[in-house]
């Protein structure tokens, strides 16, 4: 059925499904019989519950992403409202909202917990689909839109015959990304730390098992075995579903993008996000009138006025705090621990940014090296691309505690060990976005460009500096945006290792991520939590406005028009 080659194709497909299942069952049987922990005994059930949970969340994400994406892409008013909101949600660390978002769901009991796990997965999976759909709908060529209008297609007919087929490739690659993200974040979603407790879904899950092996038993071997098992599931399911789907959709689409497996999706999402950020957002007219009037004053006057206004607002709020219950709550929140640590915010931000910058630098260097190697040597490419396919979906976070313990024993310096572990986790999370963007850009360097290089005799280093690096620069920028985004998510996990026993202190390195964890997990201080999230969101948005937006604009002309 998947291959569409009639009965023999179907039979072959069913046989490979059976073979895949058989391999997994054998692995289950071996693990169950050779590992002593009680939780492992029902491994197939755990696996089933995680697979169905991620699948269900994927379906929900599609059901949400497709209509909203189409709406945001076709309706101007809707786009003005939906896109900025989703854009903001996507760029700030969603994981930080976990404690906030799920507190009230826990009140519903076991079903509430299952629901909150799905909500958490959804928040990490839905964006790729939404942005993919928006990009695809906007990318429908004008001539196709006009032709179909002239044939009288409107409403549902237009959606069914033009929009849905047009978004199919983007939907599939977006769904594939969402799927990988789901596997990556399941360990966080199935092992929720809430007010000092560990909450796991009643139906269990592989993420729960992994976290338990790693955080609770601190058993390196068990974690590694489970990780291999999870990776096998990902590989088998990928080869049975996504690979086939992508092969099929390669044909007969209007999009000029090649639907390679290692591809498109993230790049497209990145381009899309870039575009959405920078051109779609129009200030309302009343606001622009204000700015026009403001333009008459000098910069100094404006700055002074701003300072006066802001301090007046702060003074009024502060003096009124006693009278309003919410404001009093804010003041109390700031007075309670870890509110006092907010004073060190500049230092903490610098430390965290430093870690992110180091991890980013490493990711960038490795990704460029691999990308260029893939471009220059076909054989390297055939080794490198499949690594991405599997690598991005492996829940590497599971290795965090065991790696920390191993390193701190080996080095004898726990603090240094945690620093190294933190940066390693960041690299392993950030690198995929750089990697996917760079390799797909390298793949799409137009043959014309390469021929010119060949004709005029570029060789070796000259070829790389004159031809390859400049042509992938835009992709490097979009990859950077995405990898910093995901880096902010991961920092929340990687600066702080929670304790599973009440007697032992959790370990952490100073940083804004660990402060957020303390506020959320140790003290349950919502006010501080929101304040830190506000700070992080501000940093993310500032970086976008001051760095990425400018770079993107600068490299716009590097896009080769074909």
């Amino acid at each position, binding site marked *: 059925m998947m291959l569409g080659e009639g009965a023999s194709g179907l039979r072959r497909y069913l046989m490979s499904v059976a073979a895949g299942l058989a391999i997994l069952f054998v692995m289950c049987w071996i693990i169950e019989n050779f590992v002593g922990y009680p939780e492992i005994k029902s491994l197939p059930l755990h696996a089933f519950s995680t697979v169905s949970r991620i699948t269900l969340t994927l379906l929900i994400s599609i059901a949400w992403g497709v209509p909203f994406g189409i709406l945001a892409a076709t309706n101007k008013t809707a786009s003005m409202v939906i896109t900025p909101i989703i854009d903001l949600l996507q760029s700030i660390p969603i994981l930080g909202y976990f404690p906030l978002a799920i507190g009230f769901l826990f009140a519903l009991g076991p079903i509430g917990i299952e629901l909150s796990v799905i909500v958490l997965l959804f928040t990490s999976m839905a964006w790729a689909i939404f942005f993919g759909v928006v990009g695809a709908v906007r990318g429908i060529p004008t001539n196709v839109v006009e032709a179909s209008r002239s044939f009288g297609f409107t409403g549902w007919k237009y959606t069914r015959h033009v929009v849905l087929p047009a978004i199919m490739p983007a939907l599939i690659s977006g769904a594939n990304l969402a799927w990988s993200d789901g596997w990556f974040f399941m360990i966080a979603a199935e092992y929720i730390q809430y007010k000092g407790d560990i909450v796991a879904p009643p139906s269990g899950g592989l993420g729960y098992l992994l976290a338990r092996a790693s955080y609770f038993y601190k058993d390196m071997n068990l974690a590694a075995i489970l990780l291999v098992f999870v990776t096998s599931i990902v590989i088998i399911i990928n080869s049975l579903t996504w690979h086939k789907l992508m092969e099929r959709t390669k044909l007969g689409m209007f999009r000029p993008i090649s639907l390679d497996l290692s591809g498109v999706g993230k790049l497209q999402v990145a381009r899309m996000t870039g575009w959405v950020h920078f051109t779609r957002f129009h200030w309302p007219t009343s606001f622009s009138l204000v700015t026009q009037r403001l333009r008459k004053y000098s910069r100094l006057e404006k700055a002074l006025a701003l300072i006066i206004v802001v301090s007046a607002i702060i003074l009024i709020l502060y003096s009124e705090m006693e009278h309003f219950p919410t404001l009093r709550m804010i003041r109390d929140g700031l007075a309670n621990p870890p509110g006092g640590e907010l004073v060190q915010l500049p230092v903490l931000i610098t430390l965290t940014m430093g870690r992110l910058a180091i991890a980013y630098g490493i990711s960038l260097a490795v990704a460029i090296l691999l990308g260029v190697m893939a471009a220059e040597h076909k054989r390297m490419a055939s080794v490198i691309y499949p690594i991405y396919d599997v690598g991005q979906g492996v829940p590497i976070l599971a290795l965090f505690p065991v790696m920390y313990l191993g390193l701190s024993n080996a080095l004898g310096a726990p603090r240094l060990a945690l620093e190294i572990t933190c940066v390693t986790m960041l690299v392993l999370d950030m690198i995929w976005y750089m990697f996917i963007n760079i390799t797909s850009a390298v793949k799409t360097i137009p043959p014309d460009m390469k*021929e*010119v290089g060949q*004709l005029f*005799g570029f060789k070796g280093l000259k070829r790389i500096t*004159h031809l390859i690096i400049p*042509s992938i*620069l835009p992709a490097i920028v979009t990859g950077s945006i995405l990898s910093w985004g995901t880096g902010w998510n991961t920092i929340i996990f990687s600066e702080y290792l929670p304790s599973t026993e009440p007697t032992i202190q959790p370990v952490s390195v100073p940083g804004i991520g660990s402060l957020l964890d303390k506020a959320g997990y140790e003290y349950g201080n919502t006010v501080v939590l929101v304040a830190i999230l506000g700070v992080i969101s501000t940093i993310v948005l500032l970086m976008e406005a001051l760095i990425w937006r400018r770079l993107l604009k600068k490299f716009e002309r590097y896009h*080769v028009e*074909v």
Partner: protein
Amino acid sequence: MSVLEIEKVTKTFVEDHTTVHALDNVSFSIEKDEFVCLVGPSGCGKSTLLRIIAGLEKASSGRVLFHGKPITGPTPNISMIFQLFGLLPWKTALENVEVPLEVLGKPKDERVVIAKEHLKMVGLKGFENTYPHDLSGGMKQRVGIARALAIKPEVLLMDEPFSSLDELTAKTLRELVLSIWRNRETLPDDYLMVSHNVEEAVYMADRVIVMSPRPGRVIGEVKIEVPRPRTQHLREPIYFGFVDEVVAMLEKGNNDCAIKNHDR
């Protein structure tokens, strides 16, 4: 001795698991100071042939001789103009022309002088520091021509150089290329152009070589004996006579191919 000799060139390649016969036993030669045009339907392998001559691709069998020596890779003696211009988007017009000179190891100041001179020749004085992004299609192709000529090649290959331009721009650029060709002192001696526009081919070339649909074979050759400059003969029967002759050959090639496919 001929400048270029194409000897029994055959090219097959595998695409999507099927073998494609692009060129089948193609032979012809180009003499000194000649302007030759290859015409044929789309997909007849004429661009592939041009790439083999440029040393960008290898023939499956047969060879191409340049002054009697086989071509094994790109050489500065043979330069090329691309249909989609092939400019590096991250370099200015001047830098784009400089690039091949840099590879040849010319010092910076000399490079700039040569590049400026060639940009001026193609009418782009004042656009040295403009990026391709901000140039029109015609201007981009002017940069492409300047770049190809800056290395002083003996042979200039042109792969449908005017087919992505509007007719008015194409006309101006044809005149530009012809005026460069007429100036025999410094610039390339031989021109080989690939085109699917018969009128363009007859207007520009000394000789038109006609190719069949895939697999591309040479099915005829027409020597164009319209006196130059040909602008003044564009409305005359002598011009249309040659156009008709080439078109008839192309149609015959197409029909033969259709019959062959039908028999199969």
